């Protein structure tokens, strides 16, 4: 008895001792790593990371990481998301906006010291166009790349493309060190085999280089000593960790385990005390309701009158209440930061709503509201928003049941235009107002709501004039008309533009939100 008892107790004691020792050991290790000048900064975000190969990347976390490692022809400075600035090259365009000439800045080199040349630009862009199963492939649709000389590259499009400057700022169109990439199997077509090398090494010209990549856990980047650009690295090491729960990001930040949290919600940043910096900004995403106009899909609700009834039934201020700091009410399909956006949105008008509902022929039938329940946008969870919409519509006489599903399941019927009534989000493919034209009749998102060009020919015409515009003024005016018209009719009811809340401990400065790469890792530095 004694022996076994003693053994058991001894074992228990050892385990306890180790655990307690581990507690204190763990703590000191974590606090000693907090950022000091030139040290390490730890960023927590919910990963959407799939690869560190720019040519194959088209997800937000990828953009965030790649933006620190690679340069693009043009880029956005700071928080501005409307006017591309020269990065690796300066640009000139012709009057028709069909020819764009890029001249590479002198003296720029890659992380191995070799100079950036036109061959690198041509290779990188053609590679994105050539890999047909790449998610970023569509960015290069209609764009032809030609080398003019060692320092000049020309991009041509068949139709006017005033959005091309915005397109090239996307990290998917980063400029790679073509010699190195080719050495590791890189080509400009489907035979490209450089992905696995690029997932562990980088071939860029940015302020950081890739040290290690674990797709489910973290990305580690170190200072590029050979960097010769304008954005000097603020830290020796940047660690971007995958923390999928925003609540864990919050506790990590509060506990000193991390220095920056990217995905906190408005409620969560409110609970941060002193010693933390918060940067709240409206994002470029829009959360909206979709009312399918195809009778085969929507049945009795597939009418413009029903859409109008929904539009005027909602109390937008109470919906905004749920989304927290930084969020703004959506004034239309174009978010406020982009040219052409409406200045004011729709106000609740229950009388108008009831009239429209009566006119639509709706008779109390049960309507299912479908939405993805596992993809918070800007920290905003869809479920509470959907619940509130349900409550408000109930007061207006519309009987709604909720039908959430994980994104993976829900995206199918959405993309196939099979949803009668749903709550979704739309973010720009690139930072330009034209990214919101897809809401138009006969366009990508419009078709998901069964809205054909015939149903609203005047709005379809506005889309065409915006696309074909060759001057910035004409274009912006077309966007304004479009946004206005969409707000008055159509199958979409934009609800809110969620805010992004970037939070950091006070030792970190330089929090800047950008539409394309969310958090600008280049601007982070110790205070």
């Amino acid at each position, binding site marked *: *008895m*004694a022996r076994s*008892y003693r053994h058991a107790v001894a074992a228990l004691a050892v385990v306890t001792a180790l655990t307690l020792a581990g507690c204190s050991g763990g703590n000191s290790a974590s606090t000693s790593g907090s950022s000091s000048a030139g040290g390490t900064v730890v960023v927590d975000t919910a990963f959407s990371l799939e690869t560190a190969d720019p040519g194959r990347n088209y997800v937000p976390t990828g953009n965030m990481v790649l933006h620190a490692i690679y340069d693009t022809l043009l880029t956005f400075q700071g928080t501005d998301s409307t006017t591309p600035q020269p990065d690796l090259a300066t640009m000139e365009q012709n009057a028709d906006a069909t020819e764009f000439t890029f001249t590479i800045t002198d003296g720029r080199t890659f992380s191995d010291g070799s100079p950036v040349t036109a061959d690198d630009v041509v290779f990188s862009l053609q590679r994105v166009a050539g890999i047909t199963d790449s998610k970023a492939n569509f960015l290069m649709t209609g764009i032809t790349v030609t080398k003019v000389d060692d320092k000049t590259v020309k991009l041509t499009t068949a139709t006017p493309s005033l959005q091309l400057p915005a397109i090239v700022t996307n990290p998917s169109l980063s400029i790679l060190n073509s010699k190195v990439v080719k050495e590791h199997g890189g080509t400009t077509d489907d035979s490209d085999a450089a992905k696995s090398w690029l997932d562990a090494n980088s071939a860029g010209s940015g302020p950081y280089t890739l040290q290690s990549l674990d797709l489910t856990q973290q990305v580690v980047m170190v200072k590029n000593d050979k960097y010769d650009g304008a954005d000097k690295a603020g830290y020796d090491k940047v660690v971007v960790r995958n923390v999928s*729960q*925003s*609540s864990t990001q*919050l*506790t990590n930040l509060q506990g000193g385990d991390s220095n920056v949290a990217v995905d906190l*919600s408005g*409620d*969560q940043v409110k*609970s941060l005390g002193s010693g933390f910096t918060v940067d709240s900004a409206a994002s470029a995403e829009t959360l909206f309701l979709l009312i399918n106009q195809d009778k085969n899909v929507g049945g009795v609700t597939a009418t413009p009158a029903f859409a109008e009834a929904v539009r005027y039934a909602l109390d937008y201020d109470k919906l905004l*209440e*749920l989304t927290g700091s930084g969020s703004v009410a959506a004034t239309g399909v174009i978010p406020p930061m982009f040219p052409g956006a409406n200045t004011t949105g729709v106000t609740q008008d229950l009388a108008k709503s009831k009239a429209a509902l009566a006119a639509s022929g709706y008779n109390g039938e049960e309507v299912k509201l479908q939405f993805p*329940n*596992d993809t918070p946008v800007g920290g905003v*969870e869809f*479920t*509470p928003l*959907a*619940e*509130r919409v*349900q*409550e408000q519509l109930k007061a207006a006489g519309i009987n709604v049941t*909720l*039908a*959430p*599903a*994980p994104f993976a*399941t829900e995206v199918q019927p959405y993309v196939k235009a099979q949803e009668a009534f749903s709550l979704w989000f739309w973010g720009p493919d690139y930072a330009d107002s034209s990214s919101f034209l897809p809401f138009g009749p006969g366009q990508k998102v419009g078709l998901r709501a069964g809205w054909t060009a015939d149903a609203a020919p005047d709005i379809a015409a506005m889309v065409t004039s915006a696309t074909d515009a060759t001057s910035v003024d004409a274009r912006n005016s077309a966007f304004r008309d479009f946004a206005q018209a969409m707000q008055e009719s159509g199958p979409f009811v934009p609800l809110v533009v969620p805010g992004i809340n970037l939070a950091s401990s006070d030792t970190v400065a330089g929090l800047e939100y950008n539409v394309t790469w969310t958090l600008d890792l280049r601007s982070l530095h110790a205070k």
Partner: protein
Amino acid sequence: MNLIVPEKLAPRRRRALLPRAWRSPLAVAGTVVALGWIVVAVLAPWIAPHDPLAQDLPRLAPPSADAIMGTDGTGRDVFSRLVYGAQTTIPLALMLVVCAMIIGTVVGALAGYLGGWVDEVLMRVTDMVMAFPTVILAMVIAASLGPSILNAVIAGIIVAWPPYARITRSLVLGLRTQNYVIAGRLLGSSPLRSLLRDVLPNIAGPVLVLASLDIGTAILLLSGLSFLGLGAQPPTAEWGTMIASAVQNTSAWWLGLFPGLAILTVVMAFNFIGDSLRDVLDPLAAREREAESPTAVSAAAAEVAP
């Protein structure tokens, strides 16, 4: 585990068992709490001060006179949702256990009684299902069928029936060789009658013990699946989903504490009941009870006390 039911456990003794179960203070406490929760579930509309779906209270408010357990992220009263949550979870958990019990005992009885290749096949299937960790299997099933509380219950039934099959089979195997069973068959009763009259009443005990302990497990499984988002769907008030919302709002301690306590108390109540039932219906435990204080066992225990 070889539970051979002793012949002593004939009708004569069974009558004395029921009152004995309730002599334990634990069983009494458990029954009171369980009945209390069932009453709450039934009378929810009258007990809850607010509509569980109404969002008219201030958001994320700590407990106060208006809302004694605070409000959640959409301005709903936590106490009302807690009360209605009982209405969601408890009946479904009971249904889950009853279905699993029926399926499991039928499978086990068939396997035990018929033997041969039927036994082999049925037991292999049982093993295969048992070879899977419960939550992971339930998760995969719920994800493939689509998240809903009903699919969670189906997933739960699928993972819960094997233990009943196992226990029924071993009991039936043991009983097949009992004299009174053989005598019954010799006297001319059909296999079915023999099954119903002689075998089933003696299986009832251990199976019911398993079932009563399983209710707690069923509640934990259903709320666990709802916590993961694979069970009850919004805006239904369910304890697991309420705890999930507490994960996002860590400073609002009232969001997670009360639903957690609700689950804890209900499950504890059923576990107390099941445990006491086990004491009286499980023959192994019954032997313990017989060997009460002034016998060799506890005397020996007292002797060798460290």
